[in-house]
């Protein structure tokens, strides 16, 4: 089931904010076709690592390789152009655009984004636009948002916004998705729906995921591989059951009843 080739590798990443050393040599790989979890206590540097991979922040040291290309120091849009799309910890839709339009923004390299086509050669992008609409509609249907397609995105509920983020990312046809706490603040029914969507996208579309997640139940159910981050370093890697055997991991993170009860988050 698991292919052995790494699609993303992070080596010796370092990042400081003034005096705060947020990331201190984080190092891990994400295998192609896997769903990998990035876990760790609050302030461990997970979001910072996501930002470093996605180009939103520049690392002080270290490299990021994606699909064999050194993408260290790329601008965010260049990273996205290589097929790596990320979401933000707090869901951020385009509020004053409709749900359908939120998806229509996503496709990369649209013909109608060239000024000349936009102004003078509308025929050039019309058929492409039709295809995008059709695709967007199909995706919205998959995510149960079809009925909301002409609603302003700001009017969606918190859970629907989470679904919209995922749907919008799928519309971009990525190779890999990085999701920063995609299940924060939503109810259990929707959490399992999002988990199912991820499994479906992995199976059907061959997506790779890196997911920051606190809910260890979800991690156990959805993820193939787990990376534990603590104070900016990779503390351990492995499957969830392997990590449970690791005393160091348990003391650093999996304490406070989260292992046994599994209700953290």
């Amino acid at each position, binding site marked *: 089931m698991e292919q052995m080739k790494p699609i993303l590798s992070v080596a010796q990443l370092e990042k400081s904010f003034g005096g705060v050393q947020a990331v201190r040599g984080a190092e891990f790989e994400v295998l192609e076709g896997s769903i990998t979890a990035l876990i760790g206590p609050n302030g461990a540097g997970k979001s910072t690592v996501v930002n470093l991979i996605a180009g939103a922040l520049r690392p002080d040291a270290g490299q990021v390789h994606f699909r064999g290309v050194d993408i260290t120091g790329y601008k*965010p849009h260049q990273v996205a152009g290589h097929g790596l799309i990320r979401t933000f910890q707090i869901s951020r839709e385009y509020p004053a655009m409709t749900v359908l339009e939120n998806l229509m923004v996503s496709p990369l390299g649209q013909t109608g984004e060239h000024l000349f086509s936009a102004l003078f050669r509308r025929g050039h992008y019309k058929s492409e636009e039709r295809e995008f609409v059709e695709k967007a509609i199909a995706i919205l249907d998959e995510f149960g948002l079809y009925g909301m397609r002409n609603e302003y995105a700001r009017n969606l509920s918190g859970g629907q916004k989470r679904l919209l983020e995922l749907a919008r990312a799928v519309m971009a046809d990525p190779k890999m998705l990085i999701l920063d706490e995609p299940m924060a603040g939503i109810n259990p029914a929707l959490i399992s729906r999002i988990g199912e969507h991820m499994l479906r996208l992995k199976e059907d579309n061959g997506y790779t995921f890196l997911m920051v997640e606190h809910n260890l139940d979800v991690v156990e159910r959805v993820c193939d591989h787990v990376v534990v981050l603590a104070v900016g370093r990779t503390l351990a890697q492995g499957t969830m059951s392997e990590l449970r055997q690791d005393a160091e991991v348990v003391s650093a993170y999996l304490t406070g009843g989260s292992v046994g009860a599994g209700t953290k988050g």
Partner: protein
Amino acid sequence: MAILIGYLATLGVYFCIYNIFAIGLNIQFGYAGILDFTVITFMAIGAYMAGVGSLGPAQPGTEIYYILGLSLPWPLALILGAVSAGVLGYLIGLIALRRLRSDYLAIVTLAAGSIIYGLVGNNTKIFDGYEGLVGVPQPFNGVLNLSPNTYDLVFMIFAAVIMLLLWVLANRLYKSPLGRAMRATREDLDVAEAFGKNTYRIRMMAMVIGAVFVGIGGVLTIWFITALAPAGWGTSETFVVWAALIVGGMGNNKGAVIGSFLVAVLFNEATRFLPSINGLPSLIPEIRNICIGALVILTLRFRPQGVFPERKAKFFELPLTGRGREREHEVVVTGAEE
């Protein structure tokens, strides 16, 4: 009768010009969220460059100095003005659009405007300083030999044609994927960037296109009044364009139309022709500014989206097949909300 026609034609010209300004600002701010607090500088550069393009060379000994003086035919002067405004938009964008924060943008545009104002005013060698350019040749006037009032009418039609062309282009841009990407950068710059949009480039395009539009409005201005001096493009003029856009409604070019009519024509220009009261020469302009300010405040209080709010995007959709599954999804989603 001829005077009335001339008066209405004058108002018509101002309507077209302010409409072009408002559409230009709409592309910058309404589409791409760029806080341009120096709209009027683009008008001035467009106007001046078309002016020195249309005028003959400055005569030595007249104490009037300006650059170029190319005696260009009007289409070339128009292009010179439009391109110059676009180049200025690009240069300001180079500084202002590098950073992501919008307050930074506002400060940079404001500062750039002040610098250019000082430069143009104090340096008599560029556009004759605070005296400004005068006697700029008008298009077709030499050929047609019309009476002033009739010429104003012809010019109004000319300005209306240009306005319509720009209006069509602005709407095409709005509806295109490029316009959509501009709106996405307006909504959330980081997200648009994370979705592969080169947001710097996209915003730069909005900045330059908007500047070109406003510059074309400037060219029409200097042709119509045949003169321009720094007193004619102070910061308060930028405020009038913003007021027109806010009152009319941002993100919708129809809003720019109604806003230009209400603010620029009814309040700003029509009141210029009211007889001034003896001993209180500045009373009418001040009342005008108070009225425009009040209109903006009332709009923001009671109809913040403006007279014509931005519309939802419409797409041509085929009906969805297999709706059963869809309904089931919706039940799960809505049923799961607390």
